């Protein structure tokens, strides 16, 4: 037997109570794991880059910019690569099945953020084969049930073709997976030259430019310089990092981060109070036995460690169950909901589990530690 086994034995003396406590901790960790996965996933900003800059119209993202800006941005010596895009918002099948299409120049886009998107040479070659080829993100392909070689139809909400129709037809040339699980792959990439030639309005205009600064260059400084270039033009720009953009975009609806922190905080406070109260009760029940252990020579520190070990045991078992639940949820619903339980999230959750166990047991442990033996013996 070890001290840890002794703590475990103590925990299982009331199995029903211990299981309920573990369930409470599991629910708390499940909530925490899912919310953190959301923030780390493509629906949050965790996977967004601070190093990629987006140049958009200062008047709003629905306003376009002239293609002529490309040369002026590329001329800046601190720009490593620049690309451009036109976005087509539409739906496949029913109107609620929204599909985003970015029309890009494949080569320059690969230079800017091809690594992040997982654009291989084979995929780019596939996009080159026909003008209406598209590359579909893995999450989108899974959600729609699309496969390589399939011809798909997308109805644009606004962009009409030269034939007056809003229906666009594409052939899937490949599926890109993103560099990691947190990369947003719920969209598809089409060729700008095809879209630009086939659309009736907005020719030679783009919705934005994507810039990769050279290594060692401050993105913030470069962003200010790019905006200064076009400050007095007809279409002034606002340049932001991808992360800043996503944060600002999400904040248009609500401060998601604050809401999540409040929900998780409330859940944790409740769980913590339950754990502290239950452990305090469990320790009070064992007052006499703690006195016996002290007469055997168990020091105050060991008694404290014993109680903390017990809460830690409950917290770790419950927490791992919650973490496993969160992992299952992200695997089952991850692509559609943009959840990503990254190693960083798992690590943070592990720290929270340990902190919950230690903090939850602290008060009862201190009480047990300070209890005089003589008082403990009077409790029977």
């Amino acid at each position, binding site marked *: *037997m*070890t*001290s840890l086994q*002794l703590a475990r*034995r*103590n925990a*299982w*003396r009331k199995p029903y109570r211990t299981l309920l406590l573990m369930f409470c901790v599991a629910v708390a960790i499940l909530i925490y794991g899912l919310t953190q996965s959301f923030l780390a996933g493509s629906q949050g900003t965790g996977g967004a880059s601070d190093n990629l800059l987006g140049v958009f119209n200062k008047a709003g993202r629905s306003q376009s910019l002239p293609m002529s800006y490309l040369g002026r941005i590329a001329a800046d010596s601190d720009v490593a690569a620049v690309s451009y895009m036109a976005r087509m918002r539409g739906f496949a099948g029913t109107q609620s099945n929204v599909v985003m299409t970015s029309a890009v120049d494949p080569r320059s886009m690969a230079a800017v953020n091809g690594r992040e998107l997982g654009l291989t040479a084979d995929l780019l070659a596939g996009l080159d084969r026909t003008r209406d080829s598209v590359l579909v993100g893995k999450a989108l392909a899974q959600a729609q049930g699309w496969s390589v070689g399939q011809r798909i139809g997308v109805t644009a909400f606004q962009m009409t073709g030269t034939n007056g129709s809003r229906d666009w037809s594409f052939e899937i040339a490949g599926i890109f997976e993103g560099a990691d699980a947190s990369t947003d792959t719920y969209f598809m990439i089409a060729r700008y030259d095809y879209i630009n030639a086939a659309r009736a309005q907005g020719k030679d205009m783009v919705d934005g430019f994507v810039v990769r600064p050279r290594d060692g260059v401050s993105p913030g400084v470069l962003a200010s310089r790019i905006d200064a270039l076009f400050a007095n033009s007809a279409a002034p720009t606002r340049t932001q990092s991808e992360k800043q953009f996503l944060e600002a975009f999400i904040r248009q609806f609500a401060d998601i981060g604050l809401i999540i922190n409040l929900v998780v905080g409330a859940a944790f406070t409740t769980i913590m109070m339950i754990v502290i109260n239950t452990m305090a009760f469990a320790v009070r029940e064992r007052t*006499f*036995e703690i006195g*016996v*252990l*002290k*007469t*055997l*020579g*168990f*020091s*105050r*520190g*060991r008694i404290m460690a014993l109680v903390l070990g017990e809460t830690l045991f409950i917290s770790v078992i419950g927490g791992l169950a919650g973490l496993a639940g969160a992992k299952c949820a992200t695997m089952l619903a991850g692509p559609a909901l943009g959840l990503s339980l990254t190693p960083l999230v798992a690590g943070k959750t592990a720290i929270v589990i340990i902190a919950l166990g230690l903090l939850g047991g602290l008060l009862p442990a201190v009480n047990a530690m300070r209890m005089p*033996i*003589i008082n403990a*013996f009077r409790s029977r």
Partner: protein
Amino acid sequence: MTGTIGKEPYIEIRGVRKGFSFGAEKVAIFSDLSLNIARGDFVAVMGPSGSGKSTLLNMLSGIDRPDSGKVRIGDSHLEQMGESAKAAWRAHNLGIVFQFYNLLPMLNTAQNVELPLLLKPLSRRQRAERVDTVLDLVGLDGRQKQYPASMSGGQQQRVGIARAIVTDPGLLLCDEPTGDLDCKSANDILEMLRLLNRELNKTIVMVTHDPEAAGFARRTLHLNKGEFTEQFQREPEDLAPQPHRDEAMEQGVARQ
């Protein structure tokens, strides 16, 4: 002072004062208690309820502290030691046998006995060997996996004794060790304590209400109103194995 006879005192209590407050009222338990006990002695302390027997045991175990005076055991002055030092001292020098055994119900026999060994730098195997040895000594070999709830009072007390001696302490404090047992079990336990005293040279201080139990000790001290009022020293021939108490009772009944 109640002293030792021709032996260097292992336990020395000198000029101890101890009282308790109950609201505004202060009740004195000991006003000037002194006692010497030699190493290897087996002392029974008798006395009516409230005479201070338990308080004496509490002070000898470092659970309670005298208001003034000296409590020395071996080289350790308990009245000067802090809680951590006393805990370490108890772990290495003291075994306690309780009236109601005080075993942990969720642990089996071997685990209960192993508890004090968790405080020592021993490997799992060394601990298991020691546990097996003492369980064999108290006649519980083969009952390692049995839980307290399935054992008789006498068996539980044997486990309690095994737990008290597993660290090989010099001093055993017994708080009415037979108070909850039938005659046969009580006799077995007392025989065991006497064996530990004689064969392993354990110093034993036993508090009891039972004169027959006290008869197993080398010395009996009577405590009354916080003072030792009389002392009875047994000669070696008095310490020969006694007839079993049930047998003695039967003989007594037969004589009547």
